[in-house]
Every structure is written in C-alpha cells, then in structure tokens.
C-alpha cells in the first residue's frame, strides 16, 4: 500500500452534527481512516444509523467533515463533482427528463457534442438492459429500472470512483439479486473503483473484494474482511461453503453492533 498511491484516501474524517434546538450535538462519525486502491470494490457494512451515508456524502463532497480530509487521486475533495459518481437510495432521476436525457445529463453539462452523447447513452442503455426505454419518463419505470438508469447516469460521466448508498435498499429480493449481478458484471468488465454502502450482509460479501464493518453510532470502521471469492461471480456463489463462512463471520461482527444500535432506540 505504501508503494501504490490509493485511489481514495479518507484521513481522520469525523462528523459532528450540531444539536437541534439547543440539544446535544450528534456525533455521526468518529475519526475514520480508509484507503481504497484503484479498481477495488469495497462495501461498507453497518447497522442503520451508524454513519454510512454520512461518510459517503463526505466522500461525494455533499457534506463537509468536522475533522480530517478526503483525497481522490491525491487531490482534496471540497465539493461534489462528476469524477465521483453517486447513486442514492432514494430515486433521484430528474422527472422532467426521459431516460436517455437523464443518462445524458452530465454529458450535456460538460458540453459533450450531440453525436458523442448519443453514442454513450446508447452504450449504457444496452448494458443496463434499458434498450427500448430511452424515451420513457422516470415515473413509468419500476424501482429497479430507475436505479439502473441512475447507475447509467453516473457511469456516463466516466467517474474515477462510483459511490453507491444502499442503491438496492428499496427493491424486492428478486430484483435486488438481479441488480447485484448486473452491477458486479459491469465491475468485472470495467474494474471501476467502487465504494458501496449497505446494511445487507449477503450483498456486502457478494459484491466486494473487501468488506469494511462499521460500529453502531457513533460510527467507526471496526473490521476489515477481505473476500477472496473468485470472479466472475453469480448467484450460485451465495450458497457455497466459503460464502457461508464469510457470512457467519460478518454476522458475528455486525450482531454486536446491531444490538447496540437497537438498544439506543
């Protein structure tokens, strides 16, 4: 790690939210260090409320850390930008743009010529299995399709890193499994650097080359579990003994935290 400069470096980043109405300040994230090598797929696993979104939003530049800093390719992150593509848990397609226009949004912002724009859009429509939906309005799409468009929209910018905040959290189990395979298939081909937040243990293992386990609030990274399962992976992987061993281990890690998180409420 000392030899290769990491793609993303999170140094000592913490976040304290000021208390509302004179209440006590909320520490959402304890000082956290994290380094993501290029082409790695990292999942951040933790119970809800542990500060996963807070950390991801700081990396995206949508929020500022109370202490510490985030470096992408050695440059400090101070505001959001297209080199850090983000997919949110809530459906954030622009409702007034159709599918193709949504995917082309970032390209249009950068003034990419029309012909090139169309090429890129067609490429991602095909890869996301969205051909034939180019002129649909977001409202007309299922949740899974909307998230596929959201991923395509982020990828169309060719970001240095892709940030995903529980993107499949609102989907049903079957759709979610298909989406995981789709995303993994894209990663296996392009090897984009990915930081993926989830509270689902299976999802964390299936996708990742490394799972980072976070503690209950205030969050902190408490364990790092490498996932040495071979690629390409498909759904059958989820029933292998190796997968189950990892699952058992992470269940132990996360259980204590979930209990803590539950006691808080």
């Amino acid at each position, binding site marked *: 790690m000392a030899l290769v400069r990491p793609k993303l470096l999170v140094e000592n980043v913490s976040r304290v939210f000021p208390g509302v109405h004179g209440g006590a300040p909320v520490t959402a994230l304890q000082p956290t260090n994290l380094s993501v090598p290029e082409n790695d797929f990292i999942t951040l696993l933790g119970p809800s409320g542990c500060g996963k979104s807070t950390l991801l939003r700081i990396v995206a530049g949508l929020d500022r850390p109370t202490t510490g800093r985030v470096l992408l390719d050695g440059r400090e992150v101070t505001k959001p930008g297209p080199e850090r593509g983000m997919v*949110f848990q809530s459906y954030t397609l622009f409702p007034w743009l159709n599918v193709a226009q949504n995917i082309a*949004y970032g390209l249009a912002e950068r003034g990419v010529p029309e012909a090139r724009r169309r090429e890129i859009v067609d490429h991602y429509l095909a890869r996301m299995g969205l051909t034939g939906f180019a002129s649909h309005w977001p409202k007309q799409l299922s949740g899974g399709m909307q998230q596929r468009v959201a991923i395509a929209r982020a990828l169309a910018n060719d970001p240095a890193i892709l940030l995903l905040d529980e993107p499949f959290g609102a989907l049903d189990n079957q759709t979610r499994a298909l989406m995981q395979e789709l995303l993994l298939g894209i990663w296996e081909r392009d090897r984009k650097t990915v930081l993926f937040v989830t509270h689902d243990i299976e999802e964390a293992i299936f996708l990742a080359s490394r799972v980072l386990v976070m503690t209950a609030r205030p969050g902190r990274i408490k364990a790092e579990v490498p996932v040495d399962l071979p690629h390409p992976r498909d759904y059958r992987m989820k029933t292998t003994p190796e997968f189950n061993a990892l699952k058992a281990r992470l269940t132990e890690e996360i259980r204590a935290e979930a209990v803590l998180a539950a006691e808080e409420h």
Partner: protein
Amino acid sequence: MIRPLEPVGQTARVGLGLAFFALFVGAWAFATLGGFVSRTFLADPVTMLQDGWLLLTRFGFLHDIGMTVWRVVGGFALAAIVAVPLGILMGAYKPIEALLEPFVSFARYLPASAFIPLLILWAGIGEFQKLLVIFIGSVFQLILMVAVAVGSTRRDLVEAAYTLGSTERSVVRRVLLPANAPDIAEILRLVLGWAWTYVIVAELIGSSSGIGHMIIDSQSLLATGQMIFGIIVIGLIGLVSDFAFKAANRALFPWRLA
C-alpha cells in the same frame, strides 16, 4: 353507494357538473318567473338573455369585453414578468429571500382596491392606471408563491445534479427551473383568477369602458338583466381561460402525467 375517495366515471362527472348548473338556473327561473322575487331586484333568465343580446348587438358590449380582457392580460403579464424571475431568485438564494420576503409578505396584504384612489391621482384614469391595479393585486402573491415552490425543490435532485457536474448556476437553470415549471404554471393559473376580481373593481371606479363599467352603468338604470349578464360573461371567460391553461399545462408537462 357513495364510498369515500372512490373515483367517478368521466360521463357521470360531466353529467353531474352540468346538472348543478341546470339546477341553479332552474331555481333562479322558478324564483323570478314564478313571481317570488321582484323583477326590480332580480331579472329572470329570459330577460337576462334578451338584455345580453341587446348589449352585444346594440351597445357594443363586445368592445367592453375586449377592453376588460386586455386589461387583465396586460396587467397580469406585467406582474408575471416581474414576479416569476424574482420569485425564482428568492426561492433559490436565501439572502435574497431574507431581504425581500418580509416586505413582500407585508405588501401582499395591501388590498389592490384601496390603491385605486391613489393610483388615479398618480396615473389618471387611463389604461395605465387599470393595469397598475391588476399588477399590484397579483405581483406580490405571485412572488411569494413562486418563491415557496422553488424553495421546496427536492434537495436530493439538487444534490444528484451536483454529483453529475452541475455548477451552482446551472443547477438553477437545469434543475430548479424545470422541476418547478409545472407548479409555476399552476400558480399563474390561480392568480390570474384573482386578477379578474381586481379588474372589475378597477372598472367600477373612474372608467368609461369594460365589463365593470357596464355593470355600474346598468345599476343606475336598474337593469339587473344586464348586470347579471355581465357577471355571467366574466364567469364564462374565467372558465374558458382556466380550461386553456390546464390544456396548455398538460401539453407542456407530459412528464407530470405519465
């Protein structure tokens, strides 16, 4: 048979809507033609139609209607040209909101009709004064409503735009504007309805043309048929412009309906 929130079919909807109009006119005809109300105070529907026909054919009422429509449209267009950009700026930029919001909230409660005597002093009794009444009556309402709509734009859409490479300025143009365009159109439709009340008031005082002027003229002649005809014409124009606005919105913003 009637269940809460249960939708009603299209034919039944139109039928019921028309039925109430029929009921209303029926009750009116019964009260007047049946001799229960003095004709001095309330004309019957037949007389109203005859008076209306006379107004249109003999007394140049079409010109009055044209004048009134032009005043509403002119005053309202001026108000919209000022209010929509200002409202967008207020909604988007909080310091501008902090600067203007208290004053606009105050000005909104100043009744436009109370300004008429003052406006006559300043601008005379010409067309400009009429436009000003409508302008004052609509502009503050428009500003506030547009500002509220723009201010409540979904934050996650704005954030998504930033992560896709939008700058602060292009977020206004490419997110805040299109996201709120249908709401702004709806606000314009609503406030245009209110502008109609201001124009009539403006025409009741110091005017020599317009529907309001006709109504005040008819009062001195006790011509209730003409007065009611004038009022009904206003209602019909309102209905037509409302339909036109709604149709335009449907055509302009198909993504809302999909």
